[in-house]
């Protein structure tokens, strides 16, 4: 399990959580704890869950998205599912989770991935204690990200 979180875009309106490894009932607890702590801290309008590095997921992953959707809705926010690999997407479509959280494919610039990776390096080791997750707040590069919504390709 690994979770990489960083705050993007100005005014903390977007948070992307990079999930990795296998999501099952066993690992989902820690992942959701870590996401929720960071959502509480940063209060993002849009929560992006990046699945590009997830190798396995069962319906526990669906529960994870449903739960985050519920919490975000209560706060007036949204959840997006970012870049799920085909086999992960298959589970999502069987469950119809795309009706709650839009599936989007976004090109994540290498520099941002790198930043997320660096910020997660410490938190990976301490992932048992979700509170130790480090967040690197990125500012300044928001111009480029402002357009990211237009770059989102809706998938069917």
């Amino acid at each position, binding site marked *: 399990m690994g979770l990489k979180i960083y705050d993007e875009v100005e005014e903390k309106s977007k948070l992307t959580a990079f999930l990795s490894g*296998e999501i*099952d*009932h*066993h690992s*989902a607890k820690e992942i*959701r704890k870590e996401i929720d702590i960071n959502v509480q801290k940063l209060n993002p309008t849009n929560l992006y869950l990046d699945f590009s590095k997830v190798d*396995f*997921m*069962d*319906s*526990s992953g*669906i*529960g*994870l998205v*449903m*739960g985050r959707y519920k919490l975000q809705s209560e706060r007036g926010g949204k959840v997006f599912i970012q870049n799920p690999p085909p*086999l992960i997407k*298959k*589970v999502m479509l*069987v*469950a119809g989770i795309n009706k709650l959280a839009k599936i989007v494919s976004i090109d994540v610039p290498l520099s941002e991935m790198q930043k997320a990776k660096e910020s997660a390096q410490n938190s990976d080791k301490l992932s048992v204690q979700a509170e130790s997750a480090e967040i690197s707040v990125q500012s300044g590069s928001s111009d480029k990200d402002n357009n990211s919504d237009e770059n989102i390709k809706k998938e069917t």
Partner: protein
Amino acid sequence: MTKKKAKVINEIKVSFPSLSENERFSRLAVSGFASQLDPQVDEISDIKTAVSEAVTNSIVHAYKNEIGKIELVARIYDDNKIYIKIKDHGCGIPDVKKAMEPLFTTSPEEERAGLGFAVMESFMDKLRVISKEGKGTSVILTKKLRTKLDK
């Protein structure tokens, strides 16, 4: 369950305690066993997901407040079919039909989506659930894999 001419060519039996760590172990064990059928990546993924769902059900529901034994049997038939049985001796399901309805869950507080059976059903060819209250539950999954000629 099986057509009369199909012959068992291999079989494994594994039993393990209902610890959530074993969700991963069980699906990897079955995927390792199934690999001798030379399955496609998507077929292995389907099987792993279905096994994970069934084993998670036993851990979360059957043995809700205890640790019990889960027995897994997997067989390969000469017609390229895989048979998987996941059996527990837990609390059982009072109403199997209801439990199989999509989105039905008795553990919403744990963020269970209520989609376990729906996922098993759509990822495998056949799903059979035998349950008795107070005695336990058996989930039988079968799937015929594409033969090499189909690939």
